[in-house]
């Protein structure tokens, strides 16, 4: 478990180093995720301990939202002042995003299935 955790940190560190060195706009951990994916493809899958450690971390992803989420107390005034635009933007853009994704994939795969059955 410690070895797997060290591996995750090492990939995060490599990601941060690449971000700074190449002035990339992508967060370091995201670059680390890409690097780990390449490593997993080359290695043909994760070790048992990496699979377990990653599973445990991802199962508790909710926990890691909490410290930053609690920062809402710093933004009480802003949320209150801009409640209207925030609420409309959040709800409308989420509905638009859901519809655009779902309809696009639905249309593309339906067309493909029809072609396949011809």
């Amino acid at each position: 478990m410690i070895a797997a955790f060290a591996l995750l940190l090492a990939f995060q560190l490599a990601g941060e180093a690449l971000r700074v060195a190449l002035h990339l706009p992508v967060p370091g951990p995201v670059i680390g995720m890409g690097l780990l994916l390449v490593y997993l493809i080359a290695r043909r899958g994760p070790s048992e301990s990496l699979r377990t450690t990653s599973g445990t971390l991802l199962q508790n992803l909710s926990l890691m939202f909490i410290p930053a989420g609690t920062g809402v107390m710093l933004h009480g005034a802003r949320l209150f002042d801009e409640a209207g635009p925030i609420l409309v933007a959040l709800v409308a853009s989420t509905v638009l995003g859901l519809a655009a994704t779902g309809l696009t994939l639905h249309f593309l795969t339906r067309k493909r299935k029809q072609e396949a059955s011809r």
Partner: protein
Amino acid sequence: MSPESMTEIWVYLSAQPLLWLTLTLAVYLLALALHRKAKGHPVVNPVLVSVSILVVLLLVTGTPYQRYFDGAQFVHFLLGPTTVALAVPLHAQLKRLLAMGGPLLIALVVGSLTAGLSAYAIGALLGASTPTVISLAPKSVTTPIAMGVAERLGGLASLTAVFVILTGIFGAIFADGILRRLGVKDDASIGFALGLASHGIGTARAFQLSEQTGAFAALAMGLNGLFTAITLPWLLPLLAPLLK
């Protein structure tokens, strides 16, 4: 124990990182228990419940957020390695991703741009402030990526986390109803849309619908995280002048 010595202990402990770290974990475990008790109802979201309890605790005890964060930062730090760990489920889905590659990539580009840019544009047109609309743009993406992107663009990481959570809960409650009304009824499309627009909370909801739906949601969450992290930092500065 006299009230004076109680106060003395409180004054000492409340200044230590240990107290707020322990309370963060304890409140999370309590929220998980409540979530199970409500049979996984999306409104009893563990993050929403935990944050609500902690904010009340901090306000009642007059503890500044910075002192709370001195303890909670150890949990916050785990966001980094957990983001890296997303590569593991992404790798597990690789075969399916390659098999449906074309349609998935087109849906990813269309959906991701619609969700992110419409949030920014609607917020800006309705007169929300610049830090607010920048924090709104990555709200469909999983928290660690959304916060990183918002921070780099001049948004507020903690405000983004709040928007991400609200978006997740909204999608988890309403997504499959909205999609079915639009005639989108297949597992792959519903799952992919849920994961793309509502990240981890949407993915958890997708797994309740079916295993297949959940797999596509997990895939969409990872892909949208990567795609948004790469494209949004370049697209927002192009869009911003058009809305002024």
